[in-house]
């Protein structure tokens, strides 16, 4: 491995970089420089980063190299430069949630998750683009322009494609080898759907595994951070570094962090895999249906028993999600008012109310405004019970569906998204069509369950498709293991041709 040139280094994942740095095959600084170069070269074409922080990546790498030289123990992520979704507060580095209202906002504090990653020896390549306040499925709601997927259809048309959302900067950057791994957050599919669209792997752990402290909130009861990387092992390593109880987050799980990497085991003998019949919808994309069947065959091959299960309230999940998430968002985003930080629009002679209106009209994009309006409406007097209370009941029923299904199986297998990546602009006029992208992802979010997407193959257009594994609460290991079994059999080696 000593003769790796820089482009070779950027082909490596988390585990390979960590072991190469630890064994002295290359230095952490060499790795950081290689990725820094890729970040810079791809920025104009892909727009994956809002801010690049090459110096931070180098500083962290130098620290790791120095530690190694002194013979000190190295952390779980030592020498691995990563991308940080711009929803995580980072000390001294602008944190925007891809919004105008937070443009220029530089926190004096570090999110718990990013702090844990730096402590584990990771370095920051930059802040990754996303849908504004993580609201979107295509990355088109970013104030800083959309991310372009590195993937293209095989029709020669070169239509720019969506990298998925909201963690679209993360997915595009990993697929394009701008970083070996990145943080994502998932409220209703924001890790899994972009992972599926770009042929990478991403896991949303059980709600509460990763601290939300210092992560710009979208919908508190759903938001959950997780790793995105090129394979299951890398996700396990990075999740171990991110997870853990945080007394600063009341919803944080007070449980020890399992050794997921050590526990990886693709032998599924004795395990049951549930196939939810309600997910097989009329008019399902044929390629998606085929990849699902492939997944079933692979898991059978890995020793699992396939079980038909029912999640009867699935069809109510998306409507319930689009009540609960906007309701929480409408309240969570009230703090962006122009008073203390961020954008302030104070027209001449205006009063406080005028300032609020002007600031928030200018500072929030159309999709964010839409969701604030929906959320405000469903919480308002006279509508609260009909919408919010009802949606919470649905949420309870969905959680019960899963609990009952998990009496018959250990994990559930389903497609991640109803289709492969769509073209940018294709769904922007029809929010409902856009929301439907999350139809398979949202139920696990509402139930707070761990769920991951692993690449399953390419569709007839040459675009990646993902398979989703949903596990029992706290059983990330079961999810990772099933993911690993698929990974080993899918043998997904496709990568986007470099056109940028």
């Amino acid at each position, binding site marked *: 491995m000593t003769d790796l040139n820089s482009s070779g280094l950027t082909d490596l994942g988390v585990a390979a970089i960590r072991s190469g740095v630890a064994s002295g095959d290359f230095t952490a600084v060499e790795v950081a420089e290689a990725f820094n170069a890729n970040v810079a070269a791809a920025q104009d074409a892909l727009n994956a980063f809002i801010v690049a922080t090459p110096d931070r990546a180098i500083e962290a790498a130098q620290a790791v190299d120095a530690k190694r030289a002194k013979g000190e123990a190295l952390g779980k992520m030592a020498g691995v430069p990563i991308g940080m979704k711009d929803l*995580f*507060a980072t000390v001294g580095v602008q*944190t925007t*949630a891809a919004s105008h209202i*937070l443009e220029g*906002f530089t*926190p*004096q*504090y570090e*999110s718990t998750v990013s702090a844990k990653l730096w402590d584990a020896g990771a370095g920051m390549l930059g802040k990754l683009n996303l849908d504004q306040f993580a609201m979107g499925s295509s990355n088109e709601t970013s104030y800083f322009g959309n991310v372009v997927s590195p993937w293209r259809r095989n029709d020669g048309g070169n239509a720019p494609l969506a990298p998925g959302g909201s963690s679209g900067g993360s997915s595009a950057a990993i697929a394009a080898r701008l970083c070996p791994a990145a943080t994502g957050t998932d409220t209703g599919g924001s890790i899994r759907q972009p992972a599926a669209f770009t042929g990478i792997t991403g896991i949303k752990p059980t709600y509460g595994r990763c601290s*939300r*402290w*210092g*992560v*710009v*909130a979208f*919908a*508190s*009861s759903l938001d959950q951070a997780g790793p995105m990387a090129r394979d299951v092992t890398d996700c396990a390593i990075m999740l171990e570094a991110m997870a853990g109880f945080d*007394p*600063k*987050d*009341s*919803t944080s799980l007070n449980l020890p962090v399992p050794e997921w990497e050590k526990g990886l085991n693709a032998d599924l003998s004795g395990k049951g895999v549930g196939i939810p019949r309600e997910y097989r919808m009329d008019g399902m994309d044929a390629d998606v249906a085929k990849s699902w069947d492939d997944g079933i065959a692979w898991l059978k091959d890995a020793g699992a028993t396939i079980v038909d299960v029912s999640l009867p309230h699935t069809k109510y999940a998306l409507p319930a999600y689009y009540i609960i998430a906007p*309701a*929480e968002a*409408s*309240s969570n*985003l*009230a*703090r962006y*008012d122009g*008073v*203390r*930080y961020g954008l302030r629009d104070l027209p001449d002679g205006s009063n*406080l*109310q005028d300032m*609020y209106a002007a600031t928030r009209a200018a500072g929030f994009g159309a999709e964010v405004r839409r969701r604030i309006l929906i959320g*405000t409406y469903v*919480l*308002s*007097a006279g509508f*609260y019970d009909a919408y*919010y209370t009802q949606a919470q009941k649905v949420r309870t029923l969905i959680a019960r569906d899963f609990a009952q299904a998990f009496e018959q199986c250990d994990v559930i297998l389903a497609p991640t998204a109803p289709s492969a990546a769509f073209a940018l602009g294709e769904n922007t006029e029809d929010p409902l069509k856009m929301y439907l992208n999350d139809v398979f992802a949202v139920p696990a979010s509402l139930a707070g369950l761990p769920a991951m997407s692993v690449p399953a193959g390419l569709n007839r257009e040459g675009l990646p498709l993902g398979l989703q594994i949903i596990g029992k609460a706290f059983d990330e290991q079961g999810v990772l293991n099933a993911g690993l079994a698929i990974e080993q059999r899918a043998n997904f080696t496709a990568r986007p041709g470099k056109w940028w």
Partner: protein
Amino acid sequence: MTESTYRIQGATGEWEVVIGLEVHAQVTSNSKLFSGAATEFGAEPNAQVSLVDAAMPGMLPVPNRECIRQAVRTGMAIDAQINKWSRFDRKNYFYADLPQGYQISQLYHPLVGEGSLTIDADEKAGLPEAKVIGIERIHVEQDAGKLMHDQHPTMSYVDLNRSGVALMEIVSRPDMRSPAEAGAYVAKLRQILRYVGSCDGNMDQGSMRCDVNVSVRKPGDEFGTRTETKNVNSVRFVMATIEHEAARQVDVLESGGKIVQETRLFDPGTGTTRSMRSKEDAHDYRYFPDPDLLPLVLDDAFLEDCRNSLPELPDAKRARYEGDLGLSTYNASVLTADVETARWFERLLGETATAQGKQPADVAKQAANWLISELFGALNKLGKSLEESPVSPASGAELLALVGKGTISGSIAKQVLEKMLETGDGANAIVEREGLKQESDTGAIEAKVEEILAANADKVEQYRGGKQALFGFFVGQTMKAMQGKGNPQVVNEILKTKLG
């Protein structure tokens, strides 16, 4: 329980006033309800603001155990139901002193349920009988910050020191029927809070404020429409608010108008209330459960700890003073009125009993009388409170021991107290130095008595002729001749014998 006879005489007959109070009491705690920031009164603006209090992006609330403990103890002190399961809700509205854009409160599931307190009979105050006032609930919530309008010609400044400080909202039933009852309720509640130590009750510093709900009706009718007068900050103003508001409502109704359900403000300058906003302009607060917080679940050990830490409460203490210590109702109620007074008295009582080698019950009257009739008066003249008294309970006990043992008389004790307050010296030292020891030697007193009787032969004649009232004159003359140092008992006995 009899109904109060307080009535407003209108042109159409008598009107009854119905009053309910919502008292906001700032919880005594070193830190805020959901952040670690300090809560001291009077700090520099914005010196006690954490990232959570300023609602920075990604910040999360974590409940402060001490604040919950204090609210539970308060609930126990009013014999209320403590809800082992309660929940925090968000009350959403925009204002510059509310950084989150919502107040974390408890609408649906408060910490403390149904309780009550008893206001005592007080003829002078217009309360012929004791009365039980129902308390509907106590919930905990965040206080807002403060706007400062006098710092800049065109802008308002925001001080967030108070933002996030814990409040208890104590909501009474509409059980009060006169300003006197309402005043007594606030005073009694304040007394209990101070005993429990859950609120300092400093109304002038705003740590206890009242929202006063008032309506009027013809006796026996249904409740009328009420108005709510906000943030009234003294017992006197609460009573003035009710008097003015009830009279205003009677005027409106008798001239054919209707009472508008509205929020009003009390103007201490004029003693009147004025409209702030009507129900139509009322905010839609869009209450919903705070998704950043889990339900608050209290275990038995916590409740047990709360109960065990409760002090003797005023009603029990007063009963004990009357029953076990044999104090008069008046003295018992004066000594228990404020927790600091009771504390001072009990130290004095303990020291006095020890100094005289007696049981507390045997010296209680002496101690109580001296504290109430001597020390209070003396301190009053000096403009000092009991807490600022230059005479400590121990030195008070020293003085009382001199009286108890007959070393000095009660009237000499008054002089000694004055000297003690002046010089800070102890009673023994002063009595020694000034030669104030009482003369009990029968021979010396007999000699003086004979001198006096000889010099006032005419009066002796009159006395023996039946003018018994002259006895006091002989006592006075004898004491005067002995510079007050004659033992009054001995003087009396000798005089009686001599006058035969």
